[in-house]
C-alpha cells in the first residue's frame, strides 16, 4: 500500500533521514520505534508531504507520491495526526472536525462526526468552544479524530497517546486496533513502544535517520536489544 524507498530528507544542510526503506501493506498496523531525535516525526512529515524530500521515493497505492502536494494526499486517503497536535486553536471543536472532512460534503460527514463524539464524549461537550481552550489531552483527542474525519485508507499517527490519561491511552490503542477491521492501514509512531508493538503487526526501529531493525511485532518485543533500549524492561 505504502512504499518508501531510499527516502532522504534534510533541515537546511543537515540531513536527518539517510535513506529509509519501509513498506506498509494494506490493512496492516506498522509501528516505528526510535529515540528522541531519531527522525520519526520527520519521516511522517515526508509521507504526508509537509516536509520536502531530497531523495528516494514514496509510492502510495501504486502511484508515485513523491511530488504530490500535501493537500492532495488527503484526497488519496492519506491522513495524519501530527506531532504537537496542530489543531485550529481559533476555531471551535466542531469546526475542527468539519475541516477534517474538508474534501467531503455528504451525509457521512455528520455521521463521522457523531462517531468521533461517541469516541470522545468530551469533544461533544465542548463542540462549540474554541479548540485552543481544550486541555492538552483533549486537543490530542481532537487531532486524532480530525484525522479520522478525512476518511483515510492509511492513517499516520505521530505519538497519539501523548498526554493522554492511561484510560484513554488504552482506548486509543483499541481504536487503532479496530482500524484493522475497517481496513484502514496504520503507521504508528509511539513512545509507548511496548503498547504499540503489542497491537502492531510489524515494526521498524529508527536510529539517527536509519532503519536499523525491522520485523514482526512479536519478534521485536522479544528482542533483548529492543527491550533494553526502548522498552526499559
Amino acid at each position: 500500500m505504502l512504499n518508501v524507498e531510499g527516502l532522504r530528507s534534510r533541515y537546511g544542510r543537515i540531513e536527518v533521514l539517510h535513506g529509509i526503506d519501509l513498506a506498509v501493506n494494506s490493512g496492516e498496523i506498522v509501528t516505528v520505534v526510535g529515540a528522541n531525535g531519531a527522525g520519526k516525526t520527520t519521516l511522517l512529515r515526508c509521507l504526508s508531504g509537509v516536509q520536502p524530500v531530497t531523495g528516494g521515493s514514496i509510492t502510495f497505492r501504486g502511484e508515485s507520491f513523491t511530488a504530490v502536494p500535501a493537500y492532495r494526499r488527503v484526497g488519496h486517503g492519506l491522513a495524519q495526526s501530527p506531532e504537537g497536535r496542530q489543531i485550529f486553536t481559533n476555531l471551535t471543536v466542531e469546526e475542527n472536525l468539519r475541516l477534517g472532512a474538508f474534501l467531503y460534503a455528504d451525509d457521512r460527514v455528520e455521521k463521522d462526526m457523531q462517531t468521533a463524539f461517541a469516541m470522545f464524549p468530551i469533544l461533544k461537550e465542548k463542540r462549540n468552544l474554541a479548540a485552543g481552550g481544550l486541555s492538552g489531552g483533549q486537543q490530542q483527542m481532537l487531532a486524532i479524530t480530525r484525522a479520522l474525519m478525512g476518511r483515510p485508507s492509511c492513517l499516520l499517527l505521530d505519538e497519539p497517546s501523548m498526554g493522554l490519561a492511561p484510560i484513554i491511552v488504552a482506548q486509543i490503542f483499541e481504536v487503532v486496533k479496530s482500524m484493522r477491521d475497517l481496513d484502514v492501514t496504520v503507521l504508528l509512531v509511539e513512545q509507548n513502544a511496548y503498547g504499540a508493538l503489542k497491537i502492531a503487526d510489524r515494526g521498524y526501529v529508527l536510529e539517527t535517520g536509519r532503519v536499523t531493525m525491522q520485523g514482526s511485532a512479536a519478534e521485536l518485543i522479544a528482542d533483548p536489544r529492543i527491550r533494553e533500549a526502548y522498552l526499559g524492561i
Partner: protein
Amino acid sequence: MAELMQFVLSGLTVGAVYALVALGFTIIYNASDVVNFAQGEFVMLGGMITVFANMAGLPIPLAALTAIVVTAVAGVALNKLAIEPARGAPVVSLIIITIGASIFMRGLAQVVFDKQLHRFPAFTGDTPIMIMGATILPQALWVLFGALVVFAGLWAFFTRTLTGKAVLATSNNRLAAQLVGINTNWVMTMSFALSAGIGALAGVLVTPITNTSYDVGIALALKGFAAAMLGGMGNPIGALVGGLLLGLIEALTAGYISSVYKDAAAFVVILLVLFFMPRGIFGKSSTDRV
C-alpha cells in the same frame, strides 16, 4: 438637533468609506495574518480605472465592472508573484512586501494614468436628501449600502461556508490546513482576489464623494486600517462598526470640539478603546494555552 443630525450624517458618510476599506482588509488578514498595506491601492485602482475607462468611452457601470475585475486580477498577481514566492517568510517580511507593492502600484498608476485629481458623477445625482433638517448626498447612501452588502456577504462567508472556514484555518495553522486537504495557495489567491475586488468596489463607490488620484491609497488604507483595528481585525462586524464609529467620532469632534484635532480625537479614542479592549471592540482573544 438639525445640527447634530448633520454631524451624524457626515459621520456616516465618511464612516461608510472607512468601513468599506476596512472590510477589504479582513479577508487577506484572515487568510494570512498579513495586514495588506496595498489595500488602499486597490481602492485607488478601482477609482482610477473607472475614470480612465470612462474617458476611453465605456459607460460608468461597465467601466466600474472593468475596474473591479482588473483590480481583482492585480490582487491575484500580487499573491502569485510576490506573496506566494515568499512563503514561509515572517509576517513582517510579508507586510513589507505589501508596502513595496503599494509603492509599485502607485508608481505604475502615476505613469499609466496621471497625477491629477479625478472624479466621476454620482450614480444618482447630487440632489441632497433631507433628513430632519440635515442633508446627505445620495452617493453616501450608495456607499453605506455597499458597505452593508459587503459586510453581510463576508459575514455569511466566514460563518456559514466551509470555504470561509478554510480561509480561517489557513491563517490559524497552515500546516494543519494542508493536512486536512486545504489547498492553501488557492485560498490565498482567492483571498487576494476578493480583497482586491472589494477594495476596487470601494473605490468605485467613494470616488464621487472623495475624488481620486494616483495617491489616495495611503490615506484610505491608514483610516481603513485604524477602523479595522478599532473594531477588531479580521471580523467583518468589527470593520463595519469600526469604520462607522471612526467616521462619527471625527464628524462629531469636528462639529462640536475642534476641526483641527478631529483626526487626533479619532486616534485618542482608538488608544482608549484598545486600553480597555486590547483586541478591539469585537476582537476575540486568541486561545492558545500553555
